[in-house]
């Protein structure tokens, strides 16, 4: 093996065609797809392009034997609910896989429940099992701040954190860990666990979506499901977004998805209510304003105003 490595480095190319290298690994497609599929998220996309560029150069440097150690790739995604953290994690895994920084490119998504045990001695095997499953891919820890319970010093979460930190440090070439969660709570989490902050190379902040972005997300989702807004219902939905944003528990794209699910339900109900009608494909695809306006969001807005 070492002889092979030497032969490899002996033949290390002096010049490298960057474009060919870029095309060869095929991350261009993933980045374009990221641009196409995800609405908004400008800062996130720029950050990912930067990281991809860095990794591409790192890969070339390795080929030219200018560097030998594995870069730290652990990341933290902060942002409000429904801003696309999980989706982006999947894309990141694909990019890392194409560039050869993770061997398999799968994503294991977990929360506190899957890492922390119920009784003494339960946590370590549990955490290790998840780590073993994630080896060669990306471990995505959603709502990572729950691992640390400041009010309970005997909480088993601390044990999981210690095992995680150890593996994050010693097996950097086997595993990439992505911690995700809401901004302010993640800040507190990092403040009380300085070990994590220093081991994470890339902190990416996910901004909230604007009204227009939320609408294009809704449009995209409906298109995928083969539905469409009529001009009137389009207007109604724009108003819906405005009102929903002011109400509690708004979680960006996820709220939009839920709203669309309920709208589909109402649409189906409306169609079934009139059994004697002959339907066209257009009727089945069209969302009428009444489907949107029946939402609780509108009635609540009237009560509060």
């Amino acid at each position, binding site marked *: *093996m070492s002889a092979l490595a030497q032969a490899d480095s002996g033949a290390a190319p002096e010049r490298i065609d960057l474009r060919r290298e870029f095309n060869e690994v095929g991350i261009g497609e993933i980045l374009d797809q990221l641009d196409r599929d995800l609405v908004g998220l400008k800062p996130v996309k720029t950050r990912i392009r930067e990281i991809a560029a860095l990794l591409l150069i790192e890969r070339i440097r390795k080929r030219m034997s200018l560097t030998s150690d594995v870069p730290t790739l652990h990341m933290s995604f902060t942002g409000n609910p429904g801003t696309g953290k999980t989706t982006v994690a999947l894309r990141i895994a694909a990019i890392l896989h194409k560039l050869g920084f993770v*061997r398999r490119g*799968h994503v294991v998504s977990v929360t506190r429940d899957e890492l922390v045990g119920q009784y003494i001695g339960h946590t370590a095997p549990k955490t290790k099992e998840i780590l*073993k*499953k994630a*080896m060669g*891919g990306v471990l995505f820890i959603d709502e990572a701040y729950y691992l640390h319970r400041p009010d309970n010093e005997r909480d088993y979460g601390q044990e999981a954190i210690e095992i995680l930190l150890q593996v994050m440090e010693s*097996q950097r070439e086997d595993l990439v860990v992505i911690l995700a969660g809401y901004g302010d709570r993640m800040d507190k989490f990092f403040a009380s666990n300085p070990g994590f902050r220093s081991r994470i190379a890339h902190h990416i902040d996910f901004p909230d979506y604007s009204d227009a972005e939320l609408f294009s997300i809704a449009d995209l989702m409906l298109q995928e499901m083969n539905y469409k807004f009529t001009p009137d219902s389009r207007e109604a939905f724009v108003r819906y977004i405005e009102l929903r944003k002011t109400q509690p528990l708004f979680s960006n794209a996820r709220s939009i998805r839920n709203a669309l699910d309920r709208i589909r339900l109402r649409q189906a109900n409306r169609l079934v209510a009139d059994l004697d009608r002959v339907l066209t494909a257009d009727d089945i695809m069209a969302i009428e304003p009444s489907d949107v306006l029946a939402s609780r969001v509108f009635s609540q807005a009237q009560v509060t105003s």
Partner: protein
Amino acid sequence: MRVTQGCFSFLPDLTDEQITAQVQYCLENGWAVNIEFTDDPHPRNTYWDMWGLPMFDLRDAAGVMMELTECRKVYGDRYIRLSATDSSHGWESVRLSFIVNRPKNEPGFRLERQEMGGRSVRYTTKSYAVDRPEGQRYGGS
């Protein structure tokens, strides 16, 4: 005397890289890999101690290698083997099993003869190592 049990046992000991490649082969076939250890190498001793649970749903050999390293730290002076179980219908049994760690000195086996009625003799093999109690057989504590 070198114990030869399972796959690859007539070859020189596998390096970690070779073990990783074998484990990856098992995982790609969808087999669950299990780590076992013992200090009683008699060929009829099929019940080795398990190191943790069999590892299901792994994608990469690094997970198994991590456990193997841990196991070697604790039981580096004993025999350790990896076995891969195929759970698919019709197989439902071990598909591959090989030794990945062995004691420095393997004293081997002696042949014991038991005189029977008439002039018949009964033969049995006994490992020299098992003369000592479990845990102290290969210079361990």
